């Protein structure tokens, strides 16, 4: 299968401000790619460029093997779903779904057929003759998805479609979008700042910052092997623990304060010696013990013990650094206790403190 979307050397400047920098992105046919990043990282801008709603400064955009760099949005073979739904308020749901088709002079019979199919898939048949004002937020967003659906296109673009919904509806619709993707097999590009949405929906996630894709990979890869400090810190809650130190013993160990941590098992190989390095360990990859551990362990003191119901979070201080550790509820330790921390080195990440890149 070929690529559904190809972005080549895309650059976008607003005046002297560079918003997207020489970006390349290939999305395979039927793939679900999530653009994830903090606000202002350029993710929505990139989506608008794909849709043709923004004119790019340099580069090319190909969709389904056609160069659409200069094409109108309606000629690109895309459907788009917006954060604010953007339904035409004075038209009924049916009117909203058919407006674009009528304008493209699609025969009425075909319009009816497509609306019936979209309504069935999204289960909005009873709403077809209502106006958007009479719909709930979740229903409106279904209709907005329906508007993309009836266009009968291969590529769907979602611009933070769930951000205006409350938490419960958001998770319901998230599952629904996933189901829709499985059912239709369309290519989908989905913009969000919500990492849960990204991790659950995506085949691949593109983490963006400052108009540059920091890492493009499958969700687990991004979570487990972040390519730089930003990606490591952006995903995960609470965030990854960063231990500042240096690599010693030809890179086979990591010196953190007074503790030397053996790096055996880290990415299966030795790393060079570096004066400034950061060891990143996720809260769930640390074990807590009240007795000294067999291997190298970090002495720490529990400051706060947070019970989250399913598990528990310990906030500790080790060698002057604040850390968090996720432990099972039965592993809770009261505040003030002196403990020893063991790190799961094969699952840890090592970064160069200067370049912030993974070593």
């Amino acid at each position, binding site marked *: 299968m070929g690529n559904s979307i190809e972005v080549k050397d895309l650059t976008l400047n607003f005046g002297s401000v560079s918003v997207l920098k020489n970006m390349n992105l290939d999305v395979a046919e039927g793939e679900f790619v999530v653009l994830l990043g903090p606000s202002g990282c350029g993710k929505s801008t990139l989506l608008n460029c794909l*849709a043709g709603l923004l004119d790019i400064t340099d580069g090319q955009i190909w969709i389904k093997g056609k160069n659409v760099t200069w094409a109108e949005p*309606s*000629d690109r073979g895309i459907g788009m779903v917006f954060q*604010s739904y953007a339904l*035409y308020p004075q038209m009924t749901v049916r009117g909203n779904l058919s407006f*674009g088709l009528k*304008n493209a002079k699609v025969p009425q019979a075909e319009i009816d057929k497509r609306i019936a199919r979209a309504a069935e898939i999204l289960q909005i048949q009873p709403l077809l003759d209502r106006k958007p004002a009479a719909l709930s937020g979740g229903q409106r967003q279904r209709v907005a998805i329906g*508007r993309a659906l009836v266009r009968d296109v291969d590529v769907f673009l979602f611009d933070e479609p769930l951000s205006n919904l409350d938490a419960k509806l958001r998770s319901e619709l998230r599952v629904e979008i996933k189901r829709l993707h499985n059912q239709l097999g369309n290519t989908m590009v989905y913009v969000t700042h919500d990492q849960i949405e990204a991790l659950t929906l995506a085949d691949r996630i593109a983490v963006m910052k400052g108009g540059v894709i920091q890492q493009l990979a499958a969700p687990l890869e991004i979570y487990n092997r972040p390519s730089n400090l930003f990606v490591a810190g952006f995903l995960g809650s609470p965030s990854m623990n960063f231990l500042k130190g240096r690599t010693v013993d030809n890179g086979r160990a990591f010196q953190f304060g007074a503790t030397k941590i053996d790096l055996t098992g880290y990415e299966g190989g030795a790393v060079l010696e570096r004066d400034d390095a950061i060891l990143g360990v996720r809260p769930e990859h640390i074990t807590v013990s009240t007795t000294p551990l067999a291997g190298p362990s970090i002495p720490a003191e529990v400051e706060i013990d947070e019970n989250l119901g399913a598990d528990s979070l310990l906030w500790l201080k080790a060698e002057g650094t604040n850390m968090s550790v996720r432990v099972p509820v039965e592993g809770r330790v009261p505040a003030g206790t002196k403990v020893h921390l063991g790190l799961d080195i094969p699952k840890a990440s090592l970064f160069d403190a200067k370049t912030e890149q993974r070593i």
Partner: protein
Amino acid sequence: MSVASEADAIRTSSVAKPRPRWSRNVSSKIAAIPMILTALVVFLGGTIWTVVYSFTNSKLLPRANFVGFDQYERLWSQNRWLVSIENLLYYGVMSLVFTVVMGFILAVLMDQKIRFEDTFRTIMLYPFALSFIVTGLVWQWILNPEFGIQGVVRDLGWTSFTFDPLNNPDTVLFGLLIAGLWQGTGFVMCLMLAGLRGIDEDIWKAARVDGIPTWKTYVMVIIPMMRPVFITTLVIVASGIIRLYDLVVAMTSGGPGGNASQVPAMYVYDYMFQAQNLGQGFAASTMMLLSVLIVLIPWAYLEFGGKKHG
């Protein structure tokens, strides 16, 4: 129970007596007195007083000598009043249609992400900062048959060219209209532009993805969405038109030919303060009130009554 609550009451009253309702927030009530007086005495009371005295035969001074609808019968048999109403109707409809249509079109042009938007807006709106007197006098000068547009064109060689609206009873309203539009269209443009800017950007994006041409998006989507803005603008412009007075005084003083550009507000002023025939003035101003209510009540119904039904 009752003993305890009584004891409670005694205890609280010995600490701080609960103040009676009327004395709470005294200063806020004192501060609201000007507003209450204005609303009740001037706006409500004054209106009712004038309506009531329009049924009397007051001349120089208001007298409670009721004569039924006599003043109204006289009013509607006066040629001057009939001309005033007719003028207001013609001028009002033309002015309303032109200001709203032109204001909207200008707003649409301004909304095309143009350069120098601030400059264009500043130029289109400055007449609104000027008084009707200044507006009227400037246009009176430009429309001056001897030295104004007509004179200039004739000097260029078109000696038969005629453009003298202010001195021709048939066209004097157009003369007023040119000046009125000059003064007020920028204002309507600003209201419309604010309305256009208030529309969700995503609607435009959705329409582009749907492949709807821009003009069709305006007609089919944007104008219906701006219905409240249109209605509010119509009400503001219409209630201003009914009050039309200064502009006519400055441009034509009601002339030419005595009453070709008379308007109701002028009739009211003349009878109340010049001809010392208060009854006529009251009756005429009551008719003005009536015409405003005809505009206002459907609007209030649409704006506030319709909301309850969602």
